[in-house]
């Protein structure tokens, strides 16, 4: 990661989109040529219920300034209730991030159905602007995990707290 001091701050946002609703909505935004901030990088998961709290922490520690989680609307989950799990974990995770001094705006959960391409556009733009206003996330305290996934003690604890 290189930071060019002369360049204005451009937030990096990692997004976890469920395959059935939000990722499809993002495709729809594309098909409809809705222009939005290029700051969001989407990672496709089958269900927002797959989002492990560690993914969020990993993203923040690897240089993301914010994390967006997108799932189906309540009651619309392709797997019945994965999005409820996502919401429960999100709420706990948000409390934890607050304790770590991370602003609420940096973690966002949105229900975006397959037909809501415009909502993808709106949410991505909004979140980019909010984080741009907050400035870069500077965290020394978030533990770094290695990529091969060897789970250290902290990660285990996080998982226990949040699942």
């Amino acid at each position, binding site marked *: *990661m290189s930071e060019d001091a002369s360049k204005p701050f451009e937030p*990096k946002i*990692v997004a976890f989109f469920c*395959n*059935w*609703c939000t*990722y*499809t909505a*993002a*495709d729809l*935004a*594309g*098909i409809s*040529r*809705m*222009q*939005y901030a*290029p700051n969001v*990088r*989407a*990672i*496709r*998961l*089958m*269900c927002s*219920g*797959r*989002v*492990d709290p*560690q*993914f969020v922490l*990993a*993203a923040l520690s*690897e*240089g*993301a300034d914010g994390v967006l989680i997108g799932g189906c609307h309540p*009651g*619309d989950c*392709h*797997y*019945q*209730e*994965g999005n409820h*799990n*996502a919401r429960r*974990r999100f709420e706990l995770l948000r409390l934890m991030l607050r304790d770590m001094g991370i602003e609420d705006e940096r973690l966002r959960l949105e229900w975006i*159905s*397959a*037909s*809501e391409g415009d909502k993808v*556009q709106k949410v991505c733009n909004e979140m980019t602007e909010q984080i741009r206003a907050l400035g870069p996330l500077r965290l020394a305290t978030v533990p770094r*995990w290695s*990529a*091969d*996934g060897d*789970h250290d003690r902290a990660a*285990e604890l996080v*998982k*226990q707290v949040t*699942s």
Partner: protein
Amino acid sequence: MLEPEGGLTSQPISTNGGPRIGVYVCHCGLNIAGKVDIQAVVEFASTLPNVAVARDYKFMCSDPGQELIERDLRDGLVNRVVVASCSPLMHEATFRKATAKGGTSPFYFQMASIREHVSWVTVDNDDATAKAKALVAGAVRRVALHEYLEPRQASVRPDVMIVGGGIAGIHAALTMADAGKHVYLVERESTIGGHMAKFDKTFPTLDCAACILTPKMSAVRAHPNITLWTYADVVSVEGFTGDFTVRVRHRPRYVREDLCTGCLACIDACVHKQAKIPAEFDEGLGKRKPIYIPFPQATPPVVVVDPEACIWFKTGKCPRPCIEACERDAFDFEQTETFEEVKVGAIILATGFKTFDAAKMPEYGYGVYPNVYTSLEVERLLNAAGPTSGEVVLRGGGKPKVVGIIHCVGSRDAKHNLWCSKVCCMYSLKLAHMVKERTGAEVYNFYIDMRTPGKGYEEFYDKILKEGVHMVRGRVAGVTDEAASLEEEGRLVIRAEDTLIGSVRRIPVDMVILAVGVEPQPDAQDVRRLFNISCGGEGFFTERHPKLAPVSTFTDGVFLAGACQGPKDIPETVAQAGAAAAEVLAMVDRGAVVLEASTAFIDDAACSGCKTCVGLCPFGAIGFDDERKKASVNEVVCKGCGICVGACPSGAAQQHLFTDAEIFSEIEGVLEYV
């Protein structure tokens, strides 16, 4: 085809020596190349760890594009593949197949969506290029960790279920039954036929609807390969493509379907001497008794008792002459709901549409002025088997001398339905012709734009113009009984700007016909959830691809036919029903389907036996061995959502293609390099 073919055979190749990744960047003509600097992405990709080859090509999905991948794999240059092109929902299956053809597991493949997620949505070229690089890096990092997986297959049950017995369901059922498949056709009304059965004539040929529909209805009933369930609905669906278990509820009609011959003697015998209840099939214009048959050619020709109206059900005191009148002893007043479960390989949804509720537009006076009708009501008036035997008689009596037909009621309207309902222009012209023919009335059509694309449609418009139907280009603002002049007294006045002459006109008429638009069924959302498919914002079911997979859904094994997917006229509906039947036949005759590879599995050694996953699994796919205190996943039942994986406290639950390690790598990839 968006679905991989069954029976992908692949020879395992050695992965010794670590991953060697090939990155293929697609131009997609100018769709990507017009925004993203392809060369820069290729150069960047070639610097990433484990990348052995980085190439670009105009259309990676074309045969030569796919051959690039196959050749590199076969030549041993690469053993993993990343394609940066469109969305995986579009072409993942294509490239997995190419990877398999190259001689390895189709799952040594990852896609980066640099079209839908980058070039189509980004304003600035440099931004787009940077984002494309990040997504490619994510894919490269993750594909290095992909494991060797064999495609899983499951056999397909040969039986098929069709939900909805309108013309779409009927046509699909007959097509498949003729091909030798057993079809369960489920219809919630007491007869099949749907909306088409209510029409008198069909545009543009003016065929009599009954003449072309009723033979097909009879054929359904007579077909040995069709099990017809009317007055029934689906209450639950379990399983997956190729093997669904569907639970159906049979509602009581209080008459045994196997005994009733449709002689209708019971209706004559009923203690209700007069038919007093507004008949649903006649849009309330005709009347029926508590025991009734919707229309003479109802299929099956079995009567129904309406317990809301039947004196026996209301008071328990009725001599029940109906029972007496029945020679077959078909009555069973003790009937209750029954449930039945069937196993089918595929499902076609043909649940149809409803028409817009005209009362939502008070400015048109529907429900206030008796001589304002909906188009469906007029269909019944014109129908020889309808409440007036085909005479156009007004509610207040008498024949209309001047008739106004208002197009686009509820359609093309931001306050109601934004979409064009597609069929109203044509059926309004048809009604104009019929009303003029039957009554000799002057007919005015008020339209916003005339839409007559279709074989013979413009010619039909031409014919109607020749017949002297008045066409006023302007949306009607209101229908009123306020008379501003003598000729308006006692009549309805239609107010619209004739936009072609640039003046507002007030046209007094005796009858107003509202060309109500096409809407999703009111319970479309429930049906969507039941079958696990999706709806657009307006509520029509979403097809897998608007052009290339118009009858498939995102849920394998569930297909669509007819107006439940969007407004359609009869020819289109029938064509789509045929297409859905063909897709199902292809699947059933193949005998096997490829299952989702991304199932969960438990690392036995790491499992702590906490049972968190067992309770979370929505499909009951996780079992628990009480002796060993270990969980295990039944991969046939697992649908691959990964909910258990996200929750497993010890990291023992993992998901093929979405392991923690793979996702961590993708996160790093999208963040680290750009």
